[in-house]
């Protein structure tokens, strides 16, 4: 009887030990998983802004870009919000300018495109809108066009694609 009770206690302790080891393993695996996931996210964010191709429009390494706008909207001169200043009525005179935008660092290469998320969570923000005289606008476009060059990534993609096309 006594030996049977002792063996029962041993079996129970073994079970507790196995369950404890399994739980310990699961917690350890979870911690390692979380560690590597966070590392991969950080690497992905860094890569997305280091190796982005549109250098010609990039202002800095912090995700700021400069693009051009041209509109045939009637523009009021006041300090109204942007959508009120650029109204709904058409004019035959063109207005020209540049604008600066910021892209959040969480927008990374390899992430799924979800523009609704991008717009609603304000991951793209319009920082500045500046109007330019027509000749200055054209001169700036010319200057940026001349500085346009095919970056390393673009060169690689084009070369790879061309090699497939040649097959």
């Amino acid at each position, binding site marked *: 009887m006594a030996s049977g009770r002792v063996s029962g206690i041993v079996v129970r302790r073994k079970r507790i030990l196995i369950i404890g080891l399994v739980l310990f393993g699961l917690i350890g695996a979870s911690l390692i998983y979380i560690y590597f996931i966070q590392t991969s996210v950080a690497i992905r964010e860094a890569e997305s802004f280091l190796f982005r191709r*549109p250098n010609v429009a990039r202002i800095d390494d912090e995700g700021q870009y400069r*693009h051009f706008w041209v509109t*045939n909207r009637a523009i009021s001169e006041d300090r109204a919000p942007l959508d009120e200043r650029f109204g709904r009525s058409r004019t035959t005179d063109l207005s020209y300018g540049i*604008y600066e935008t910021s892209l959040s660092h969480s927008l990374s290469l390899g992430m799924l*495109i979800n523009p609704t998320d991008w717009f609603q969570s304000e991951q793209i923000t319009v920082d500045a809108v500046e109007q330019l005289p027509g000749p200055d606008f054209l001169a700036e*476009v010319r200057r940026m066009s001349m500085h346009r060059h*095919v*970056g390393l990534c673009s060169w690689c993609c084009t070369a790879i694609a061309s090699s497939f096309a040649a097959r």
Partner: protein
Amino acid sequence: MVLHGYREQFRSALKKTTFIASVLDINTPVILFDWPGDQDTSLTGYRAAHDVAAASGTELAALLTALVRDVQPGRISVVANSMGAQVVVDAFSILYEQAEFSDPEVEIMDVVLTAPDVDRDDFDARFKEEIIAIARRLIVYVSSNDRALVASRLINRSRRAGESSLGPEQLPEAESIADLMEAGSDRITLVDVTPVNRTRNFHNFSLEVPEYYDDLFLRLTNDAYPKSRRVYPIRASSGTVYWVLTRGR
């Protein structure tokens, strides 16, 4: 150059242009041509926007003329979505009448129309010839069950150029839409995005579908389309080829 469609306000046009430039990821200056398409959300508003779009072709033509003359870039690509395509086709009608643009020389490299809200008969009879006279390539992306274009079709009582209303297995209808192209011509390309179109109204695929950006990137950066891509050609009896985008592995 990027043009947006009906109901687009100035600020959202700026943001969407940034989005497209970022996702397309081509190293080039990006110009938004913004037109007042944010008319009322009603039948009257839609018709007003359509009239404004057609009239705005004059200003777009003036801008393209200034860019070609004064900037002389290596290449110009114009990408227009939905009713923005109406602005483009009217601009090219004006340019077509100008001696500077009607010569055999190609002034603009690519014209890309996504889900174009343009009368299909007008497009087929007039606009596509005018665009091809000026641009090296015309690429049109269409999708079946495009609800916005179905509504537009009801309002305008005519089919829209961006409608395909077919699946890749429906060869007779594919042949019908392939009539938009000319046999043996590599200058007009028609791409159906239906199998990869996961958008809610099937109209905004030019903002939301990764495969569209992948396809557009390759077409803009290559003269010959890479043969390894997940895209299927449907060859109609007339000899025209109609492309269908498919999901990746």
